[in-house]
């Protein structure tokens, strides 16, 4: 290279992974971070180590967003979930790369996981305007009343996503919770948080109202008890690995009678890792009585 000549090299723009709270990409207020390495010990990114304050912010955003989200028509909610699938499809290649790099999985395995995550979103998009008809009843009471029961969202659901598969696991627990109108605060995979944090970009471009899904990375052992004790969280979906932590979470959840569902799914690819039961788990049945007369 001669004097005065400028190199044509383009330096890679590295991504900063942040938390996703209230539809915004934010750093943890705590200023803490954890370096995330590939299996080959290459530094992939510094990821926020979320704090109790981040969780509280996320719950507040979720609570604010929940009623508006629940009031959207089932048709619209279905379309938004479908758009999440579209957005993930459009970025399938980069998600596959991320999974390969961050977990050291084969290209085939990474592709399989991304395909399954897309399919799962499509599956729940279709449930949006159907689950109510299957979970609701008209009750033949022995008096002159029209009596019916319908599923309603529980409100704010805390999700402890499984450590692995990080992307498919996240989608598996997130989609059925939001399709019924809940808002969620997710503690993403602690070991492999990057694909989950990348998924925030899918959420942000899917017309999903801000605050419906909030993603927090960090230490589950530190954060899970705060979520379990939070007085404005209605339910917990616990797909974490740590059984001792699960027990203490289930105990703490009693503080405001949270509904706790523990999931120990061995194979996230199986057909029974999706379906109506996953939606029902975070709905509340409301029965309404109305007199029949003139």
């Amino acid at each position, binding site marked *: 290279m001669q004097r005065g000549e400028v190199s044509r090299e383009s330096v890679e723009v590295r991504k900063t992974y942040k938390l996703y709270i209230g539809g915004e990409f934010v750093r943890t207020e705590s200023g803490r971070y954890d370096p995330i390495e590939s299996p080959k010990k290459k530094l992939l990114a510094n990821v926020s180590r979320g704090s109790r304050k981040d969780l509280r912010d996320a719950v507040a955003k979720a609570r604010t967003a929940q009623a508006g989200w629940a009031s959207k028509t089932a048709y619209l909610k279905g379309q938004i979930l479908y758009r999440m699938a579209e957005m993930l499809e459009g970025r399938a290649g980069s998600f596959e790369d991320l999974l390969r790099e961050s977990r050291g999985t084969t290209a085939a395995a990474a592709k399989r996981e991304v395909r399954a995550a897309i399919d799962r979103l499509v599956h729940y998009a279709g449930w949006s305007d159907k689950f109510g008809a299957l979970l609701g009843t008209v*009750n033949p009471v022995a008096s002159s009343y029209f*009596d019916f029961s319908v599923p309603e969202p529980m409100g704010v659901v805390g999700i402890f996503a499984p450590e692995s598969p990080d992307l498919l696991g996240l989608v598996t627990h997130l989609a059925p919770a939001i399709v019924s109108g809940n808002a969620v605060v997710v503690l993403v995979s602690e070991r492999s948080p990057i694909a989950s944090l990348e998924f925030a970009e899918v959420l942000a471009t899917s017309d999903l109202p801000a605050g419906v899904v909030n993603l927090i990375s960090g230490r589950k052992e530190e954060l899970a008890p705060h979520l379990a004790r939070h007085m404005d969280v209605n339910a917990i979906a616990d797909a974490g690995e740590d059984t001792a932590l699960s027990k203490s979470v289930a105990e703490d959840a009693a503080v405001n009678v949270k*509904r706790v569902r523990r999931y120990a799914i061995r194979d996230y690819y199986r057909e*029974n890792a999706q379906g109506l039961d996953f939606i029902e788990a975070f709905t509340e049945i409301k*029965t309404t009585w109305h007199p029949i007369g003139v």
Partner: protein
Amino acid sequence: MGTTVTDEKARAEAIKKIEAERPRLEFGGAVWDYAPAPESKDHVRLEKRYGLFIGGKFAPPRSKKYFSTINPATEEVLAEVAEAGAADVDAAVRSAEEAHRKYWSRLAPAERGKYVYRIARLLQEKSRELAVLETLNGGKPIKESRDVDVPLAAAHFFYHAGWADKLEYAFPRHRVSSIGVCGQIIPWNFPLLMAAWKIAPALACGNTVVLKPAETTPLTSLHLAKICEEADLPPGVVNIVPGAGETGAHLVNHPRVRKIAFTGSTEVGKLIQRATAGTGKRLTLELGGKAANIIFEDAAIDQAVEGIISGIYFNQGHVCCAGSRLLVQESIAETVLAKLADRIETLRLGDPLDKNTDVGAINSKMQLEKIREMVASGIEEGAEIHQSSCSIPARGFWFPPTFFTGVAQSHRIAREEIFGPVLAVMTFRTPDEAVEKANNIPYGLSAGVWTDKGSKIFKITAKMKAGVVWANTFNKFDPSSPFGGYKESGFGREGGVHGLRAYVALSGE
């Protein structure tokens, strides 16, 4: 938003003035009186002493302890009842486990159903006796035990009996099996009915039961045990272990119990949720409530007033879903409250066995003290008390129909469950304010909405954070209709298709 406490006070003053000046409706009292019309208790065969019902037999308790159960209307001792200790609970659970393993879980579902039908029929046959017994032991008016508690208890058995061989239809794509031994703990407000809510679905789904009735009201459960005997229900399928909280704790903590169903206070419910966490035991909780009964200005006022009355004074207000917070639209508040003040004067308080009695005895001395304490707090915090001037019998536990005006949302009487005939009245201006106030509480069991406008009903009922919402009615129950709470009022449903879920194990679980 809202009105200030001063506004509320001024309004209360105005209402008081109107009340004083307006000619009163004349009901009873000075004009005429009702002749006594007591239900006969001759056909009730009370035993002096009741054992525990374990393994199909009544037997003395290993604990060697007995407690007296009384009539709260007279304070007379009705009988001595065995108290189940740890060894007794253990024996009951083992007996239930053996019955499940050896017989009940192997019986063809349709045959299982036939036993449950038998119980329903026997309850109907003995309904008069059971109604009197319920009233004697619990203090509730005979017209309620006769017309509500006992017929509904029979209906619950009849309804669930038919599910026994149809569970696969309720849970498509699942293999359905029973869970095993269910530990069930019930309260004293609807003793027989709660036993039916618990036992009927458990049995229909192929489970066996250890049931602990409340310490103040064990008698109808023990007579239900006699009915199980008479129905030739296989030994151990139903076990009844009376006792207090300690007995309940033995049951909750017993390692062979696979499922706990609890109806009672939120405080105890939380303890049970904690105790069962991580044990793999299934749990359903039906806990406290503080229901809002919302009256809009376009409601049929007289019907709404009747709804307020049945909402809070039914069963002396010992109802978890009682309409204990009245939210009345400001424009009609004066009229509604004047009518309410009139109406509580016409409620007849007294001998629960009298067929004309509307308000019976408070279930226990302890509960009476709790009600008095809460009422004192209402007065102390500045709310204005309105009470029926009815006379109170010399013996027994009684509390007159009461309501408070000038109540702020922060008052204890507006936030805590009183479980007595005490209503907290608040007002609102807009539907949004009504919804906000109704939901601004940790409980979420039930709600009432009164308006003649159909579209408003659907809008407001949909916004209630409550498991049961009554539109233009209140306190209605049916075995086919799921009942249960949101938030701190518990989880799980009882009744209907949804109620079965608590008593089945599904493939893949």
